[in-house]
């Protein structure tokens, strides 16, 4: 198995700016986004009609 170390390092660098408990809190928002079952896909220009 090959590991994308560049990608891993990039994500680790991004994470360095977020404290442990703040990340735990952000995780909640991300998990809630993942729970969204219905996503309406729209084309730019039609957004006013949503």
């Amino acid at each position, binding site marked *: 198995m090959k590991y994308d170390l560049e990608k891993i390092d990039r994500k680790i660098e991004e994470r360095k700016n977020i404290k442990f408990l703040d990340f735990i809190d952000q*995780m909640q928002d991300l998990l809630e986004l993942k729970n969204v079952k219905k996503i309406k896909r729209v084309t730019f220009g039609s957004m006013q009609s949503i």
Partner: protein
Amino acid sequence: MSKRLKELLLEVCKVFDKLKIPYALIGGCSAIYYGSPYITRDMDFVVVPESVDFELMQSLKKLGFEPTERYEAVEELRAFGQFVHKETSIVLHIFPEVDGFSLIEGIEINAAEAGEDKIRICTLEDYLIMRASVWHDEDKQKAIVIVRAQGKNLNLDYLMKRAKEEKVTRRIKWLLKFQK
């Protein structure tokens, strides 16, 4: 508005402290503490099982955690506790031990300060030992992330002592090749 996960994690730790249950946060949340950028749906703890009784379950229920099993005897709860938090869908696991880790003499634990509270977290080295003890592809990937994030902070004496105890020395040596 639903309870924030940060608050929830601290409250679970406070319950363990109040009931004098020795514990360590393990798994994905502990990896986040050590710099992992990956989210998790689980809060996993290892405890000293003999210190667990039904008061723990009652306290967790007050925080909104519902048991997924019918625990009729305390031994069942001590063997493996699983709860789901109603508002957030976070799954709480309470293990008496996991592959490569239990709270026995000689095991080191980190007490992370969180304001006035403390969270007891497995050490960086024990996180790697646990991953090396399971050693599926997913575990290798997760361990590599932590080695890349924390390689310079590893206590190699403790790591190799634990690796020997858990018979995962070759796997740990392989992981150390990913240190930056």
